[in-house]
């Protein structure tokens, strides 16, 4: 489906509060290298509604990936609270947080992060196996999702045998296979040419609309941001603007 870039932003409406899936308040994060303390997030407040497709944008080093990592529970925060579907991840044990992630979240990364030693279908079925789904059912579902992203013919190929766009589709399939409430995507098109990037974004958009899954996409590409419902801009660890595309 072709994406429609939007150039103008509008303020977030408080009405979305009734169906909030991500709520962050006063989130602070500082990297301590021993010699140097680098504040990465400085009091971030944010809410994202269920089914929204949100882009987090900003220059390099502004804290967008850190924010995504903290929101998704991949990283810890120093101050503030983060609630995902009403659950405070910081209060969960590592095991519980991991299980929560496996159940509720999917991830898409810039460099795909597929396991090179597994085939496409094996990569896709991994989150299901981790969640305890029976191997046969996991394989069936993985094949279905691969078909959804147009890769059924490539199911038994290893990542090295796929193009960049195909690899990213496998990553998206892997992120969606356990039907998560939220998909986190960190520069999902950063390693792709513009045509392939458009195709990947269109696919994500379609899945977002079809499944009503929340997508949080970190990108520095305004074109990609323009394809989302809403753009959050960051600078120096703070949100400087938050609005929907006009």
């Amino acid at each position, binding site marked *: 489906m072709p994406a429609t870039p939007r150039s103008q932003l509008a303020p977030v409406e408080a009405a979305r509060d009734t169906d909030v899936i991500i709520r962050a308040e006063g989130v602070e994060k500082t990297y301590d290298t021993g010699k140097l303390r680098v504040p990465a997030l400085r009091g971030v407040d944010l809410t994202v509604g269920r089914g929204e497709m949100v882009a987090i944008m900003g220059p390099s080093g502004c804290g967008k990936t*850190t924010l995504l990592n903290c929101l998704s529970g*991949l990283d810890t925060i120093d101050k503030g609270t983060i609630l995902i579907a009403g659950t405070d991840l910081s209060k969960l044990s590592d095991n519980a947080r*991991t*299980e929560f992630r496996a159940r509720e979240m999917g991830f898409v990364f810039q460099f795909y992060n597929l396991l090179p030693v*597994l085939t496409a279908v094996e990569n896709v079925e991994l989150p299901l196996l981790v969640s305890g789904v029976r191997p046969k059912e996991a394989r069936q579902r993985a094949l279905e999702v691969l078909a959804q992203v147009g890769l059924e013919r490539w199911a038994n190929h290893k990542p090295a045998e796929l193009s960049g766009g195909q690899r990213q589709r496998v990553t998206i399939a892997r992120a969606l296979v356990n039907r998560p409430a939220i998909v986190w995507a*960190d520069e999902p098109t950063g390693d792709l040419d513009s045509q392939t990037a458009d195709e990947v974004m269109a696919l994500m958009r379609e899945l977002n609309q079809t499944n009503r899954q929340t997508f949080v996409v970190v990108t520095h590409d305004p074109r990609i941001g323009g394809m989302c419902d809403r753009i959050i801009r960051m600078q120096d660890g703070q949100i400087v603007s938050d609005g929907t595309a006009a």
Partner: protein
Amino acid sequence: MENLFGIPMQSIMIALLVAFGLCLGVGGWIYLRHRIIFRMGIRNARRRPAQTSLIVIGLMLSTLIIAAALTTGDTLNYSIKSTVLDILEHTDELVVPANGDDAEANVQPGVTFPQQVAADLEAALAGDAVIDGVMPVLTQPVPILNPKTQLSEPMVTAVGIDPAALGPFGGLRDIEGNDIELTALPEGAVVLGKTTAERLDAVVGDTLTVYVENEPHDVTVAAIASDSILTGMQDPGQAGGFVMALDRAQALLELPGQISFIAVSNAGGVADGAEATDAAVTAIEQALGEAPYQAVRVKQRALDMAEEGANVFTSIFLVLGLFSIAAGILLIFLIFVLLAAERKPEMGMARAVGMKRRQLTEMFLAEGIAYDLVSAMIGAALGVGVAFVIAGVMGRLVGEFFDIVPTAHWRSLVVAYSLGVVVTFATIAISSWRVSRLNIVRAIRDIPEPQRQRAGNRWLIFGILGVVLGALLMWVGADTDKLFPYSIGISLLPLSLAAALRRFGLPARLLYTVASLFVLTYWLLPDSLHQKLFPVLSGGMEMFFVSGVMMVAAATMAIIWNAEVATSLVGLLGRTFSRWLPAVKTAVAYPLASKGRTGMTIAMFSLIVFSLVMMATIDRNFTELFSGEEAAAGWDIAATRVASDPMPAFDQALAESGVDTSKVAATGRLRQVASYSSEIRMAGTQEWKRYTINGVDAAFIEHSHLPVKIRATGYDSDAAIWEALRQNPDLAVIDGFALEGPTVQVGSPSNFILQGVQAGDTTMEPIQVEIGDPLSGRTRTVTVIGVLDPKVSMIFGLFVNDAAFDQVFAQPNQTTYYVQTQPGTDDVAFAKEIKAKLIAYGVQAESLEKLIEQETAISRGFLLLIEGFMALGLVVGIAALGVIAFRSVVERRQQIGMLRAIGYQRSMVAASFLIESTMITVLGVGSGTILGLILSRNLMTSDEFTGSSGAAATFLVPWGTIALFVGIALAAGLLMAYIPARKAASVPIADALRYE
């Protein structure tokens, strides 16, 4: 040690120092020509201290093993030589009645000759610059008793020496170093040897009873001297004796005017005197003229035997250590492949900015030399430590015979260090060249190399070269009757052919599977089939190593190319425990994706475990064989007597001495002439050989259980053979050591080999041999009608009946009375009783079960020592696992982050690493165990071994020992993986995802 594998150590050292200089030269050249490259290499060595430590451990293993083997040789060489010199002191040659070639001639108990011969010889040699002393010596074995302690020895040596001739022999001193004047001692006073004093618990002033011709004589201990040939100690481990002036000894022993040998001292000291042996022997032979006496190079011969003994042990340790060295070389190669993988992007960058391929090689070489020089130094030092531990264990095993003094010769250390550096350098050079061949773009982007359906021309060229080399080696082996080149060739050929055919697009899995199965079939085929399909060629101990390397290479290839099948089993296990399925899935997938490194690690474990299983299995079966129920031929006690003076019939002597004869069920007599006192040859041939010859009485034949392995035609049972021998003095039976094996030749060249029958035969035609007494010149022809089963390990030699024995030999070297006791008798106590009651006759009685236990304990001790030494190689495999596991954590850091992100628990990540390491260890240990068991079974059931050793009626597997090796390997493998697994599990997810 002066020689190794027949090559002078000095030459080996010089050659290695030249090679070592070349290695240093390469390093120096890199430093001078490309200092920046050199620095880059050296700095790389400092980047990861933990990894560097593992690399150093891996690299030092080869040097450690070489140093330990050589130092063990030094220790044995020094210890045996010291003992020899302590015993012989200034005595360099002996003159004895002519009784055979120089290699065997010796003093014979009971054989004496006139003292005048010594006087004549001394006169003839007067003024000779080479010889500074000639001394007549009388020796006789006698029983001795210390009435005070009631301790006795049935056979010590009474020695008489001429005090006037003692000067050049260093005189006589007590154990505190005080000179002893024999002429000043009172009548009946003797100087007691240290060992005899200890065994009798005798001190100066004690009166001892000596039995001569069964009559007691009292002697008084005037002094105690160190053990030497002058105090009755002729060989290490003997009971020693006592010394007195020659005339008094002649009176005591009732041998007036008689001596047993003439001791000759060469000019010079104790050690350097032997250097003049050749000149001295020439002078003695000229002086003796036609007289029927000969000079025996007693010191030179003993020193040569010390050297030879040390060489044998060094060779055993080196050859068996080759397994560990080979595993170490694989580890070095693996380490450099992993280092290259880790640095692939930066190497790609370096190439992109202008670094040449040669410079990449130089960078790795510089780094490798840094590791190499340090690790070889540590390896040499630790090798000396290991050798000293070996010396400690040996000291406990053979301390009765030799005082084992840990000794490290600087030359051995130089050789070990240089050899370690050179071997490692060569491996590093090859692996550096290999890793420098990279595609710049793929390296920078860290993309895996594409897997081609069709291999490149390089494979074709190397494959063809391998096929040609393999065929050449086969031809050379078949032409020269050498198994070593033939077996390497026949193994190399199919593997090379498979590599070459890959160029034509044939599936690699099929090619390598077929080739490796062919190689495995060649090595593992049962002996009977093998001999039908392949030529029977000669091989030695080196075949143990060759078989191991070739089979492990083939088995590893088969495993790696078919691992999906094996790992699907692991997958099934994962499905059963579905919670762990994801961990299993990744654990299985990674090693399969890196066939090279996985194969090398499997091969390392397989090699070491193969060698250990082989050794343990052979040890178990031989121990069982030689200590089984048939070892003592059904007898319980052996009562041996060396003295030649008369003794009543054994049963009568027992009864008259008050021994409780109700405990005796049967007795039998075996009179023995040792190999140095006998002659034997095939009838119709000229050259006399040596062999132990026994005369057995009717009672011995009747009550012994003596199974015959090979029966002559015409005899349908063992009983028929022995009954014929009992009745007919023209017949004989011989033991299996006289047989020639199809491929393996053992023993001294002067040993008799029975022609016309081979180990492995089941029947034979009767074979005529001639036996003779070199002293009297009497000979006789006997017909061999059977070969004794080697399970009878306590009785050996050629057997004839008493009548035949008496026709040839005037007297035996020793007589053994075998005793069967009534059920319930304490054989050890009864043997002690016999020994004590028959002390006047000089009878030494021992429980045969105890003797077998003692002998087995020593041989088992040595085998365990060797197994322990070989187990050092396990360190290589374990280090390899550690290197791989640490490397994997670094390599997969980002993927670990992703796995954690999608829901892998920490425990699952750790489990994945542990399962991966365990699987590799299990495959290596499993293949090594299976190969080792099959080959040792084939070996123990082969004709060669069943014929000469009687093994394999039942094949025994030392499950306990194997379980121990396997357990250690698995536990150590798990431990090595545990630390990196924990590290992997605790990787912060966000950091890992950011990692590049």
